[in-house]
């Protein structure tokens, strides 16, 4: 399956209305069955229920639209978005085991470990699975360890850049 995300959206995928700085935006990552690709849709939270996803949802997070002229960044918000997305990858059991989902779980777990949002438990694994504890909820999460190629990493970075830590 190809990774074919749209770049970070400036307008709603449903209403096509442009986002304005300060808007809260729901970002959805889905598996487009017909196109055989992974997709991303950004929209206002009120539009989520009416939007028909072209495939099953893999994960989601919320972001706040920044002023393009404002270079200041809020690391806490980025971490919160990455945390939301990471946890949402475990909400839909049906998509467990997808290579792309596994890659995202692995990647996000390592990023969130650095930010002390999750903690690796037991011996540090570099193959198979690694058990993590989500610090806030004490929930234990099993994360698959998968090889992420440079190409895939660049695609992820280009398209999910707003939550890459």
């Amino acid at each position, binding site marked *: 399956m190809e990774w074919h995300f749209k770049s970070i959206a400036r307008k709603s995928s449903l209403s096509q209305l442009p986002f304005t700085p300060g808007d809260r935006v729901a970002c959805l990552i889905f598996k487009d069955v017909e196109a055989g690709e992974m997709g991303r849709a950004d929209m206002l939270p009120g539009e989520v229920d009416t939007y028909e996803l072209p495939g099953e949802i893999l994960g989601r997070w919320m972001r706040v639209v920044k002023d393009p002229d404002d270079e200041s960044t809020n690391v806490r918000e980025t971490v919160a978005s990455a945390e939301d997305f990471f946890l949402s990858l475990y909400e839909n059991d049906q998509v467990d085991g997808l290579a792309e989902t596994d890659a995202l779980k692995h990647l996000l777990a390592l*990023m969130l470990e650095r930010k002390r949002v999750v903690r690796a438990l037991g011996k*540090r694994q570099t193959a198979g699975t690694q058990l993590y504890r989500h610090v806030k909820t004490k929930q234990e999460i099993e994360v698959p360890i998968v090889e992420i190629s440079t190409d895939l*990493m660049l695609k992820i970075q280009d398209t999910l850049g*707003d*939550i890459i830590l």
Partner: protein
Amino acid sequence: MIFRKYLTLTSLLISLFFSVGCFESIEGFKNEIENMQVPRLMIEARGIDYGGGSGSKVTLPISGTAIKLERDPVVGEYDIINIEMVKVDLGLALLIQITDKGSRELYRRSVTHRGSRIVFTCNGQPVGATRLSGTIEDGQFYTFVEIPDDELGQFVIDLKASIEELQTHYKY
């Protein structure tokens, strides 16, 4: 009266003796490392700085390659436990051995920053860069450095002495 004079003179002499001793030991301590090299592994900042963590741009001394780095090191001086000069097919390189804590961070970065470059710096100056092309699991990092081969031996000797010093006198 005479006794008080002698007492003052004696205490002055004793103070002088200890002061000289202290200065000698400070001087001796300073001279232990003539050419202190503080090694660090830094990482290239991503194209888009969403996290606001990027620091300054550095330029490698021979190639002139400019790389924008993140502000904080991936592996700091206290987590580098040894450096060896090694000969590989393409020439002389450095093998940097890292503590368990540093190894975990290097492993994380080798996954999450695949494709980015790790820059080896000494005293804040870049001396070599290597692109992350695979995961690094064993805490052993190899890099080429932009230092002439005939100076590399002394550079490694200085690095080893500095690491020993950092691991003993400066470690908290």
